[in-house]
């Protein structure tokens, strides 16, 4: 039997969804690297979340709950396409983010190169590392979102960072020269 959803709960989910719009899109984008697809996935996740608002038991877990729905949307999408989500051509349409065009461009270039490195990771590693780095999710939360054991979260974090370090090494040494002192 379906238990009626308390009105306030659905409304609360609506409200939170509105503030989570950027979060959903950014994370979807980080996972699929395709702006149009990311927008679709974010929408789909938001609509599902709204329909299932009664399932949210603990308001403090809203973010994990929502991201889990998004992860499921990504999984369904990948299944439909009978393969993993492929990295689309990375768009060159970064919003200008700096006071001078040169600075904005350098910043955008850096972001593009890092995204490319992230895009080369297998989807599972990409999801783990972006949840941890972009959203500051704890390992436990990531395990909950992706429905994987925490040991898997840790090994994926290790492998992803190792790969990123290797791929970003030229970038880092170019950016920092030999000057990254061991003070940090």
């Amino acid at each position, binding site marked *: 039997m379906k238990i009626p959803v308390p009105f306030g709960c659905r409304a609360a989910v609506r409200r939170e969804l509105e503030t989570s719009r950027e979060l959903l899109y950014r994370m979807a984008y980080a996972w699929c690297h395709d702006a149009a697809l990311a927008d679709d996935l974010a929408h789909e996740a938001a609509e599902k979340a709204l329909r299932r608002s009664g399932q949210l038991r603990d308001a403090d877990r809203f973010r994990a709950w929502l991201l889990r729905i998004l992860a499921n949307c990504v999984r369904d999408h990948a299944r439909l396409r009978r393969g993993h989500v492929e990295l689309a051509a990375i768009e060159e349409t970064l919003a200008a983010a700096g006071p001078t065009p040169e600075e904005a461009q350098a910043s955008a270039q850096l972001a593009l190169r890092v995204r490319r490195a992230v895009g080369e990771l297998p989807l599972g590693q990409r999801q783990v590392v972006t949840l941890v780095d972009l959203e500051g999710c704890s390992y436990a939360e990531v395990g909950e979102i992706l429905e994987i054991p925490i040991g898997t979260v840790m090994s994926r974090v290790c492998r992803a960072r190792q790969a990123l370090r290797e791929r970003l090494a030229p970038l880092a040494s170019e950016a920092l020269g030999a000057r990254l002192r*061991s003070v940090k």
Partner: protein
Amino acid sequence: MSEEHKVSDELRNAFVDGELDAAEWARVAQSMERYPELREEVGELRLAKDLVRHAYAVPPARPRRARAAAASGWRSIAAAAVAFAAAGWFGHAWWSPGAGLDPTSAYALRGDWHALRSDWRTLDGNRVLVHVSSGEPGALGTALDEVEDLLRSARAARRSVKVEIVANSAGIDLLRADASPLAARLAALRGEFPELGLVACGQTLERRRASQQVTLLPGTAVAPSALDQVIKRLRDGWVYVRV
């Protein structure tokens, strides 16, 4: 096999991600003080983490949505949210999204200041960039203590020095004239030491200003992003300390 190798990959990453309990954290921090290689490696992991965060801070603009059904989605959610907000149904959001405390930097690594102090005399250029991304008052207080100490000891020794504080994420509060518990102290310090610079992260500011009024301390510069500023300074040979 040296002790450094006892700090596993998992442990190093968990350290960077703020996943360790106090005892484990102390053990890694202690090893880091002892082994420069480990320190460097943790630094690289942290840089990778920062770069990833930076890379998606401003994702590409959403495409214009063509599908009519989909296009109505956010609007209806927005309309409902506005309606309920207007009705006063909810006093406060019970979940706040976004930045919050940066788990990688919610600590002041003892080794950082310690190493900086021991290296202080041999540093080239005497230019130090202090990166603050934690809003934790204790960490901010410690950072200011250390900065003041550096400035005073340099002046006493008649050494020229330049210190810049760059703040982002929750750390931006340090530079807010309207919110910083340390604003008066920071302003006084700047008055006394013109060689102290303050820089706020443009991206953090933009996000904050979308929802609230933010007034920065007078004389605070704004960089495109904290990471840009860090990289620029490192390129110029500054020493980097993260709080």
